[in-house]
């Protein structure tokens, strides 16, 4: 038998107190709709950076129970375009100090990410991104198959697979964190600052006066508001529909899964867009994997099983040793995707309603960065420079930040 | 795979001019299929002429074309009928696949096209677009069930039925001739994959004694 306490099995102790369960007050300076990572981070930075604490965070279910509880916790900043790289790199820098900032053990582990290339075009795209990252001051390297195998020996870099690994980009500072603890850490600090976190409080409508929203109607009564900050991810369209505001957002299921606890085999994070799989091994030892986005619109927090099967096929191709690992649990979140795979942040047609949405599969890694920049935007009533490129009007001008190549959906 | 593919191929030199001859796209896999023991047998179908017929289903065009060809065209979705030296498969509301073992491909296209033209229809030669396999034996449907999601029970897919669907990751056209006799048509570029997958499945279902 092995040692009684296996390495990595010990989890940190949580603080004894996290948040109050207050009744909503009749009015707040800022009402944040959505008690997920982004909403809680926005609340924290409103208090910490701007001294704004007469704030409510409204959550329709349990705190951070949406995508924050359902993502695969990847953190990286190796994006192609300057605008994306800037916000994600700002976020990564905040991640690097977040444990101290929050006083909470969020298990942030910078273990690096490999983005595999399987075709000649993958290689070109990879080099392009690595070079762009370097010029933007983001750590990035292009690695050949042998170097990939050195960093992650379990990746099959042989020629005898359907789409052989031609190499990978590598960002050493990329990592993972424990999603729940991040949310709880932000919530605890926000609560300490006097911000009211109100669960089981669904926003049902808005009372409008001219170009302003005066009151947020909720399942727990009306709440008057100074500014409304929407951080509702997949449900943003539902909220904006109530205000008659249309966006290019589409909500899709995105599935993920975990294995049982395993002895350490996978020291880094591996992503492969070509075969739609990404995988890391979390602190307790489970393999955490994400799949591609399910094809159709859906709010059901569940996806189709063939997506998982395809993902498992890709995983076993790339990691032959995974064959007898077990799928223990699968689930789905609701991701809100935009035509250019970049977020929508900033003003709406309503003067006091600000939106932060459309993060697609990138929301978790952006959490501190967007919390910081969105809080600044809310506090000053103008877009922070980091979010300015992500305004809704870019779809009118055509100035997209196209992170997935071909922009635009079918007519 | 290389060995199978390279069989029958030589890098010809100028001294050996070739007369153009039909080559079965799966020639390189014929020996593998013949070596399979047990049932169902998987055999290569002969190459036949085929056209994709597009014509308005209403207004009597299918009936007129069928009469001229000396057969019938299927009226129901996903069904097939016999033609004098081939079959007619209903692929879609205004789409049929008509085959002929006797006519040359371009003559077959010309003939059906001429019949369809007065009705605003048209025919396009797709003889070499697909290749056919025959699965024959009581376990034919079971073998397909390892790659096809459609309901292959004889009650749902009896003689006279056809279906465009997926076998694994490849699009195929299945045709039911009898409970133990099915044909599978697949685009030639995918045919190697389909045969390899069928063979892999068949081998796993017919354990060879140690």
């Amino acid at each position, binding site marked *: 038998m092995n040692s009684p306490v296996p390495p990595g099995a010990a989890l940190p102790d949580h603080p004894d107190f996290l948040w109050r369960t207050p009744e909503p007050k009749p009015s707040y300076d800022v009402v944040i709709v959505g008690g997920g990572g982004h909403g809680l981070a926005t609340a924290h930075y409103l208090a910490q950076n701007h001294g704004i604490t007469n704030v409510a965070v409204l959550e329709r279910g349990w705190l951070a129970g949406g995508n924050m509880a359902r993502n695969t916790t990847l953190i990286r900043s190796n994006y192609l375009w300057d605008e994306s790289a800037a916000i994600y790199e700002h976020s990564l820098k905040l991640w690097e100090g977040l444990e101290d900032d929050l006083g909470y053990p969020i298990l942030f582990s910078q273990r690096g990410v490999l983005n595999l290339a399987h075709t000649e075009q993958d290689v070109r795209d990879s080099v392009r991104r690595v070079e762009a990252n370097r010029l933007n001051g983001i750590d990035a390297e292009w690695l050949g198959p042998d170097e990939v195998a050195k960093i992650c020996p379990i990746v099959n870099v042989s020629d005898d697979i359907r789409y052989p690994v031609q190499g990978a980009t590598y960002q050493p500072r990329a990592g993972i964190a424990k999603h729940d603890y991040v949310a709880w850490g932000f919530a605890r600090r926000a609560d300490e600052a006097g911000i009211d976190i109100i669960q089981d409080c669904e926003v049902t409508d808005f009372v409008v006066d001219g170009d302003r929203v005066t009151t947020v109607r909720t399942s727990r009564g009306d709440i008057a508001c100074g500014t409304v900050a929407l951080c509702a991810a997949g449900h943003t369209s539902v909220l904006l529909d109530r205000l008659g505001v249309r966006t290019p957002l589409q909500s899709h299921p995105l599935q993920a899964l975990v294995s049982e*606890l395993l002895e350490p085999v996978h020291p880094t994070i591996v992503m492969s867009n070509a075969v739609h799989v990404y995988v890391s091994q979390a602190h307790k030892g489970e393999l955490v994997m994400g799949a591609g986005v399910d094809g159709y619109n859906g709010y059901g927090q569940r996806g189709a099983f063939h997506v998982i099967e395809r993902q498992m*096929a890709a995983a076993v191709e790339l990691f032959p*040793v995974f064959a007898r690992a077990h799928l*223990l649990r699968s689930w789905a979140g609701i991701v809100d995707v935009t035509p250019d795979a970049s977020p929508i942040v900033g003003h709406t047609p309503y003067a006091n309603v600000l939106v932060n949405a459309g993060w697609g599969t990138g929301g978790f890694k952006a959490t501190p960065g967007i919390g910081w920049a969105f809080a600044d935007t809310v506090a000053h009533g103008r877009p922070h420079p980091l979010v300015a490129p992500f305004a809704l009007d870019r779809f009118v001008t055509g100035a997209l930040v196209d992170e997935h190549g071909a922009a635009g959906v079918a007519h | 795979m290389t060995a199978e593919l390279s069989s029958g191929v030589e890098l010809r030199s100028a001294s050996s001019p070739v007369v153009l001859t039909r080559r079965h796209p799966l020639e390189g896999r014929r020996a593998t299929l013949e070596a399979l023991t047990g049932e169902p047998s998987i055999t290569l179908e002969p190459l036949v002429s085929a056209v994709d017929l*597009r014509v308005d289903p209403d207004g009597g065009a299918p009936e007129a074309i069928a009469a001229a060809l000396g057969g019938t065209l299927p009226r129901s979705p996903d069904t097939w009928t016999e033609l004098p030296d081939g079959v007619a498969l209903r692929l879609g509301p205004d789409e049929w696949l008509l085959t002929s073992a006797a006519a040359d491909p371009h003559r077959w296209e010309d003939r059906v096209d001429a019949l369809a033209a007065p009705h605003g229809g048209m025919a396009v030669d797709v003889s070499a677009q697909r290749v056919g396999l025959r699965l024959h034996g009581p376990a034919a449907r079971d073998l397909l069930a390892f790659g096809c999601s459609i309901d292959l029970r004889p009650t749902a897919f009896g003689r006279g039925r056809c279906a465009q669907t997926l076998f694994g*990751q490849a699009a195929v056209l299945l045709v039911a001739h009898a409970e133990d006799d099915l044909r599978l048509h697949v685009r030639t570029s995918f045919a190697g994959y389909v045969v390899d997958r069928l063979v892999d499945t068949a081998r796993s279902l017919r354990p060879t004694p140690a």
Partner: protein
Amino acid sequence: MSRVDGYGRIDRTRTLAFTFDGVGYTAHPGDTLASALLAHGVTTLGTSIRLGRPRGVMGAWTEDPGGLVQIEEPFPEPMLLATTVDVVDGLVARGVAGQGRLAEVADTARYDHRHVHCDVLVVGAGPAGLVAARTAARAGLDVVLVDDRPTPGGTLTGTETVDGRPAPEWVDAVVAELAAAPHVTHLQATTAFGHYDDGFVLALERRGEGSDGGARARDHRIRAGRVVVAAGAIERPIVFEDDDRPGVMLASAARDLLHRHGVLAGREVVVFTVDDSAYAAALDLRQAGASVRVLDGRSEVPPGWTRRCAELDVPVEAGTDVRGTLGSDRVRAALVGESRREVPCDLLLVSGGWNPTAHLFSHVGGPLRWDPELVAFRPAGELPRTTVVGAANGTYALADVLREAGGEDAPTAPPEEITPRGMLWRTAGDPARQFVDIARDATVADIARAVGAGMTSVEHVKRYTTIGTAHDQGKTSGVLASGVTAELLGRPVESLGTTTFRPPFTPVPFAALAGRDRGDLFDPVRTTAVHAWHVAAGAVFEDVGQWKRARHYPAPGEDMAAAVLRECAAVRGSVGIMDGSTLGKIDVRGPDAGVLLDHLYTNLMSTLKVGRVRYGVMCGNDGMVFDDGTVLRLAEDRFLVTTTTGNAAHVLDWMEEWLQTEWPHLRVRLTSVTEQWSIFAVAGPRSRDVVGRVFGDVDVSNDAFGFMTWQDTTLDGVPVRLARISFSGELAFEVSVDAWHAPDLWARLVAAGAEDGITPYGTETMHVLRAEKGYPIIGQDTDGTVTPHDLGMSWAVSKKKPDFVGKRSFARPVATDPQRKQLVSLLPTDATTTLPEGSQIVALPDDGRLPPPPVPMLGHVTSSYRSAALGRPFALALVAGGRDRVGEVVGIPVGDMLIAAQIGGTVLVDPEGARRDG
């Protein structure tokens, strides 16, 4: 040995040998690893993950939270429950300390998927499932019956009576009837693990390691008209101090071990229950030779059971409870009642009632509701296509189960007395030693901390404490955690609910889900009609979409660079031949064919004359280029469109989409002829000689056969189409023939070109040659953000057409920005460096050194090659305002160097176009 004669369905005539933790043991066919070890008195299997406490078997089957093992032989498999591992000869296993180990080598076992259709799928072959399956079979329906255990019967132990017969006889009779019925498939050792929309259920059949090439596990993908969930129920423990000690076991588990495996799990037994069902366990174990004492937490004990207990000398105490245990690796005493009286025992059986196994009902959104009488969450509400029967529905008494599952056709069983169930989550004691989830070492104290921290949702509590996240996914601990949390919050348990059940019901190996989609079968390998020739000629292939395309044909000793230089020189100097059959081809027919193409291409196609060829570009609605290719007008009402290799299906889909959903009035039909026609490019100054030699009856002179025209001919009676199309700037012909004759025609062309040294060339050479002429590759020199104007192709954008797809977007402000990235060439000024494709481009600083980041980027290198014709490397690039920068020198960071390169126009070879006509 704790094996009891006369019990169990094991084959005692045969003995198997296995090893656990390095010690050899024996077992019998029918044994699980758990039963075999318990038979040998091995009760501690491993240690717990956080606290290192001993762990043993607590449940009978997949609900067991304690007995995890690692398989080492015949092949390493992590984290299996000993209760679910069938012993085979030579099995090597060991206990685990919370983490499993993966093999270091690939698993060569096969796994497959099989699609199944049926009218009725019954999940569970216990009494409810057997009756339900029999009823459906008798009605003539197609039935699939799956059950996760190796043998049918479910929780029937053999002591029951059905239709007046001993239960085993009845089970055998039903199984025989099902086997004889047509259209019934009955699979044991098959776990229905996931239920999705429209009657779709996934069931994993475990088929053994096997040595005959068959699948080790088979994933049945079942589409059922109706799903009958008869999955039974799982017994619930009661929490008390040190309840995690080996020897503490669910009452049902001890009973199951006895009746299935002939194993008496203890000799001195205490049964602690608030539910009648544990009395059966008490009596069975007593009859098998144990001394047994029942402690009933309820003040009122069931009179019938009590009477039978008295007959067998089993004392029953009412209104008492177990507060804790004593022992080290195994329980040696229960601490009973407020006085914590020591009651010696080597087995402490617990029953807090039962939780219906409604997972498959829940997977498809079926709601569960608290039933205070049942003291459990049970299915509530109707679902289309899904029925829950028997214990899974909260119906426990056998007679009721049979009636519920069988309707009019139901067998009968004697009535049972039922005493009201007690609701008891935990007894009084030290919360820090009261384990709720022994798989995660999570205690009542952990829940109390979570609640104290402000948590009120069971989802939060689960995440804070990790309860229910282990291999068993909380089968025994989930509802318990809800109950304890509710108690601590002072709220009714129904207001908390449970955490969500999600697939899979039990863990499933990754490889079983991958099935046959591995290796070459992971994704189809598409090949052309001439593929075998390329293989024989030693081609190196590249993946383009699913296609294998010959990338180059190295001569012995050549690397790719050398081979490509040679192939390029051959095409520019004499003649080369390339297999272009992977290009997508679409036959566009009908009176409105030209109208459709005018809508979809940026340029005019309707004006193309029959016999001529035109190059065209397609854009999306956003104005960005997404494909290009040549269009041949075959007849007034017929065009042949070619697409790029990787985009062929997408372009056909795109055209069909417009045609069917937007312009259905157009009289046009589209037919894919990609595989119908093979296309060979014969390119180079001697191509006319080669083509003329093969097609003697065609006048291939420039006057008779002009550039961008096509002609039909025949060869040996086979129709062949020739076209003067060039993607290299050289005199070139495209030769098309049906795929059947392609191998021979290729050979014929190669033979005819021998005297000119005809050289087969691959995609890499093609890429170099086209780049020298500035022709873009869509998807390489474009990335979905590039307009035709950016590519310098304004000439291909019609100004006459009122509209075409993408046109409106060209008028957006961003499309006319002079700083848009435009396609240009780059010549490294050192004339020796081949710029890596993908490299970024920056302004060249005066000192020639890269400044510190951030450095503004001007664009990137899209294509880069060594050119035989130019005798130097060159590149194509997208550069901001590039066409206005021609002549400027920019910098390209390559490793630690900053390489200078001069921007130029895109056409580097033969800008006058003199070579095209030979």
